[in-house]
């Protein structure tokens, strides 16, 4: 376990910024809820074997008691660094992303399953969409009952979505909660 160096921190923050925008400040500065201490402190990011974890300070301090080779995971994993050095967000980051998302998309009940199997979101499955989405923005996908299902990258702006034909791609799939079943080993 080690802290992230500056380059790694920028990579992680940039990826999170795509989804949260200015709410990134909330993610970083929010007081933690973990641990039995009366004052758990803030959240911080730690790197353990190429995975980035979002942990409260009290937990971090306790985790230093576990040996380097024995420590598997701590707090919430938000993503991993690939062999090539780039950072990818994983589905376990959905909690913090959904709470602080800037752009949201709601899916119709008929196309929920399709998205949970890993398919992209088509215009025909779109229920609601927030305004002012630009292409290339990070988008969090919800069901109509406001359950977060996953996240992805938007392919069209909101206005273009209105003019699109029903089979056009709206959101490129990046992660969904079905991955907990499908890719249990890789998470």
């Amino acid at each position, binding site marked *: *376990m*080690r*802290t992230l*160096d*500056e380059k790694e*921190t*920028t990579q992680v*923050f*940039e990826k999170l*910024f795509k989804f949260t*925008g*200015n709410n*990134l*400040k909330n993610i*970083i*500065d929010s007081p933690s809820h973990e641990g039995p201490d009366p004052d758990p*402190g*803030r959240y*911080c*990011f*730690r790197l353990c074997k190429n995975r980035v974890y979002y942990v*409260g*300070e*009290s937990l*971090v*301090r306790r985790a*230093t008691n576990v040996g380097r080779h024995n420590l598997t995971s701590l707090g919430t994993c938000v993503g991993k660094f690939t062999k090539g050095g780039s950072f990818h967000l994983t589905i376990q980051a959905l909690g913090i992303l959904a709470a602080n998302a800037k752009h949201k998309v709601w899916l119709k009940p008929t196309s929920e399953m399709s998205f949970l199997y890993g398919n992209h979101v088509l215009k025909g499955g779109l229920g609601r969409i927030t305004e*002012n989405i630009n292409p290339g923005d990070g988008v969090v996908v919800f069901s109509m009952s406001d359950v977060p299902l996953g996240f992805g990258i938007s392919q069209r702006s909101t206005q273009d979505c209105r003019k699109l034909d029903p089979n056009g791609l709206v959101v490129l799939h990046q992660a969904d909660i079905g991955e907990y079943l499908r890719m249990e080993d890789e998470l």
Partner: protein
Amino acid sequence: MEEARTMQVDLGNLMAFDSGHDFPSLPSSREELVEKCLEKGTELVQAIADALFNLPSTEDVDGPIVKLPQPTTKLPREKHLPKPKPPTKWELFAKAKGIKNRKKDKIVYDEQTGTWKRRYGYDRVNDDKDIPILEAKATDEVGSDPFAERQADKKKRVEKQNKNRLQNLKQAATAHALPSHIQLAATALPITGTQAAPKKVSKEELGNVAGLAATATASGGKFDKKLLGEKKPKHEQKHRKFLPVAEGTGQGSQEKEQTDRVLNKLLAKNSHEILNVNKAVTMYNVKKEKKRSKQKRDDSSNSSKLKPQKKVQKKPIKNGSATKGYAKKGSDTKGSATKGSAKKGSAKKGKSK
């Protein structure tokens, strides 16, 4: 055929040599000269080939193999003749005194055991350890050990001999006449008679070697006292330094600083996206409309004919630079348009925390 007689073939060196060759007339051009030389060369090579095939051959997988005879031409020396070395101290003494060198046998008859033993080495003739009794002389002290004394004497003699040998070698070295086996053993010395180029050690090389020497201790040179002016080693063990994992109760101040720095950089880079110009402009227009309609209602209650109606519509402009000033006045939720004021806004938020 006359040429064949003057031709000498040295098969040991695979060489053919024509001593009677002479150019009858100097050829005019370079090409002609080259041609003539090639012709002559071919004849000579032909002679070698003829001689080779005349030798008795043995069959082999690759073809017939021929054993070449010893070479007949004497090649010149590769290295120079050995220089005469200066006479050693003993040689000078022997010459002066007229002492001649007598040949000694390796095996000598031993009187004590009645066998033939070596003159020196294992199981030798006059070995010290074979003497059983030493008679005490009048000059001997009471508590001294004569056997130990004999050993000590021998050691001294051997040391003296070695010293003299080294002195002789040094003399020979100054006269550039060291014997070849010692010359080879002393790798730093150049070949006798030649001048070795002085090797210049560069600053970088010295630094590297000094670094190696400094770290070649049991603890890697970590606890050695440094001399005055000695700098820290260039490459410390760890090539990357990370912030401490848990400082105090969790996040250290350095880590906080780093995250804040990165965050601010990121927000500042994307601050142009904070203000949505179109939305701000529409909000402004809506506000204006409301204000005007309110005025209209008030005026209509009083008198509408006297006051002129001002209709000003602001169209949203694509680049936000012109409307930034207006937007500042109008919108309050989005806060500020310029980058400087954006920073102020976020700083305000930070302070309130």
